[in-house]
């Protein structure tokens, strides 16, 4: 499943995408993110899945533009720590 967490408002699209077929719930993204965006647990959108999965925490979903800003400078943007930390490459950003 391609899970899009985030929002679209007047200033743009701010979605973090997690491919739950790739995610094995290892949890490497949780400490890697300085903004504490990720949590790992039971998939709320797939109640019959047994394996845990990563998702964006409830409290971060509506402020990703601001929480993620420190990792996204205008120039010379380094690779995003969450994307680098994910072994199966399940995490993506829309902006």
């Amino acid at each position, binding site marked *: 499943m391609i899970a*899009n967490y985030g929002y679209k*408002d007047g200033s743009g699209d701010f979605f973090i995408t997690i491919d739950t077929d790739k995610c094995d719930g290892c949890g490497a993204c949780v400490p890697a993110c300085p903004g504490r965006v990720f949590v790992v647990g039971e998939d709320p959108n797939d109640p019959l899945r047994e394996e845990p999965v990563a998702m964006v925490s409830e409290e971060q979903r509506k402020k990703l533009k601001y929480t993620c800003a420190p990792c996204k400078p205008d120039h010379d943007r380094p690779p995003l720590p969450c994307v680098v930390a994910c072994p199966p490459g399940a995490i993506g950003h829309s902006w």
Partner: protein
Amino acid sequence: MSEKKEYWRWKEYRWHDESLDWHDAEIISAGVDIGSVSSQAVVMLDGRLYAYSNQRTGYDSPESARKAIDWAMEGTGLTLDRIHYTVGTGYGRVNVPFADKAITEIACHARGGNFMYGPTVRTILDMGGQDCKAIRCDERGKVEAFLMNDKCAAGTGRGMEVFADLLSIPIEKVGELSLSVEEEPEPVSSTCVIFAKSEASALLREGWPKNKVLAAYCAAMAHRVVTLLERIEVKKDFAITGGIAKNSGVVKRLEQELGLESLKSRYDPQIAGAVGAALFAQVLETKRRKG
């Protein structure tokens, strides 16, 4: 002071299938969808739709849940203690005291959409009271991709209610009236409900007739959700759930912009979430009995 008419107010109602008898059912399951604006309860007998209700959510979610299920069961003789498994969904899903489990509305809409529109449905757009969800699912109603926007009221039922009130047009008539324009106007430029409303007021001052203003707003709403849908890749067949599915002005414009017709169901599009919840309840009760 004269009493102000509530043009936004839509009809609340209930239904049950008189050809079915709940005494014959092995598993009685229920789904309760407590949305931000409306609440629905659905009762199923061995996976067959038996009864439902649809009403406005009050300020107290547990009470809204209780009222919704009681109203669905009204006149059937069925009581809450005879329901084997109940799943709560929607914003107030954790506030359904009699629910055995809470499941997100994303999963429930996919499952319910599959039941209501058939296994060919791949893309479901739920235009709810205060949010908008785009869901892609497989032939069994399992979610393949989803996106939800609940930070912005553009493209939501509440936004349409605001417009019905502004123009003194009963909410059920908005769609039809917006389609009565001879020529399609430019959509309003703001999709934000607050700014769209002030933009509409300005157009009215310029002398625009009501139907033209509504057409401009319905078009803006349709365009707005199409940009959301693009992110999850729209696939055939396509269906719309939620209250806005009853607004032909938005539905027709959406279909035109997507180049796709939306499937219609003989059931109320607002109950999709509760239907999905009741179907999950059926599966979970079966699992529970097997141990």
